[in-house]
């Protein structure tokens, strides 16, 4: 068996640039993961549909616009509606700690802010995959 960690890196909403998401996508690729990158302006519906079609282990959302609360909740709702409970939803952007805590209560994983070393994000995902899927990157 040749199992790889598959990660969807997506930008929901109206953010105008995806520099951070691209840096993270490249870092995860370099950590040996298969990264599906979808670019800007994805609707939560399209993100969840993509995640299902690609059978990813992890969804990583980048949100800089301030709409993180709405967007993460919408993605979590849609995943629940599809009966998906075993996919890690994580991400990053400009997200105040108290908002991240609130999102954690509905099952969202760690959220990373600006300046996070990319290795930390890759290690977090690799750890999760090891613990939940028995996978190594």
């Amino acid at each position, binding site marked *: 068996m040749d199992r790889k960690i598959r990660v969807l890196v997506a930008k929901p909403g109206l953010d105008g640039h995806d520099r951070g998401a691209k840096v993270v996508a490249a870092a995860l690729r*370099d950590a040996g993961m298969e*990264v599906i990158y979808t670019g800007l302006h*994805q609707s939560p519906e399209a993100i969840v549909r993509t995640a299902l079609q*690609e059978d990813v282990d992890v969804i990583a959302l980048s949100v800089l616009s301030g709409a993180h609360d709405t967007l993460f909740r919408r993605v979590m709702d849609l995943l629940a509606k*599809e*009966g*998906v409970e075993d996919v890690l939803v994580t991400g990053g952007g400009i997200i105040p700690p108290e908002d991240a805590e609130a999102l954690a209560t509905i099952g969202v994983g760690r959220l990373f802010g600006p300046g996070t070393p990319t290795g930390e994000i890759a290690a977090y995902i690799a750890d999760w995959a090891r613990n939940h899927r028995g996978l190594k990157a």
Partner: protein
Amino acid sequence: MNQDGLTPLIEGLVERRTKALARLISWAENQDPRIDEVLRRLYPRTGGATRLGVTGPPGAGKSTLITELVRAYRNAGERVAVVAVDPSSPFTGGALLGDRVRMGDLSEDPDVFVRSMATRGSLGGLAAATADVLDLLDAAGFDRLVIETVGVGQVELDVALAADTVLVVLVPESGDGVQAMKAGLMEIGNVFVVNKSDRDGAGVLVRELEGILALSGSPGGWRPPVVETSAVSGIGVEALLAAAAGHRKHLRDTGTIETGRRRTARSRILQETRRMLLEREDARGGDALEALVDRVAGRRLSPREAAAELLQAAGSTGGGGKD
């Protein structure tokens, strides 16, 4: 082996339920042992889909063009699946699968299934499991399968075995016609597309391609046409659809579709044989292979004798092992 759990997934695939289909595709990609039984049961259902391959150098506009083609197929009421293959890094095994960036609109359509695949060490431009994945999609009842792969020529020729019709997409910046001639791309293309045709040099490339194609005559009675497109503005897409449909008609009228499918079947049997041989070798710890490697490297045994020994060993230990 107990087959519990397979039936719901297989039924889900036949009903084109995304989760079941996506999970079985992952099994094929991961060479999960359970996929043998799944494919055994589903293979008789395959053969209904039209398979279109799209290849060409990075940045030629393949994904954008595919989005336009899929839109047209959707308007005609067809069910469409796209398999987009990108290379894995030979150093880390990771991959960045970015074809969906240019296919954004397709993710909004619940009736289009798109799957990104990494080559995972395979060199022919497709992943080793691509043929199995196409069979799963075919069995799921998609009318049209589109396979996208990066090809710069020479070795990325697998797409010709996976598809009935291959579009080779080039752009004015791809270089002159001589580049295309040496690339081996000329032999696999059934339709040539000069995309970004609004750019300088498009007309020159078209004339050069036509010149080269004239030299090769009409292999199998088909002279590949050259179509100019500008995918971002949708120009030329109608002509491209007509050219691809023309090739399809040619295949049917001349019976060459059967020849092509036999060639594909033969190649897949041999590919599977090689894979199983290696798998059995692995299962036995790979010692026999290593011992043979020692003797061949030490010039005590010829590679042909070693191969014969390996086959014999596999034959005596194999058979029904995991079936």
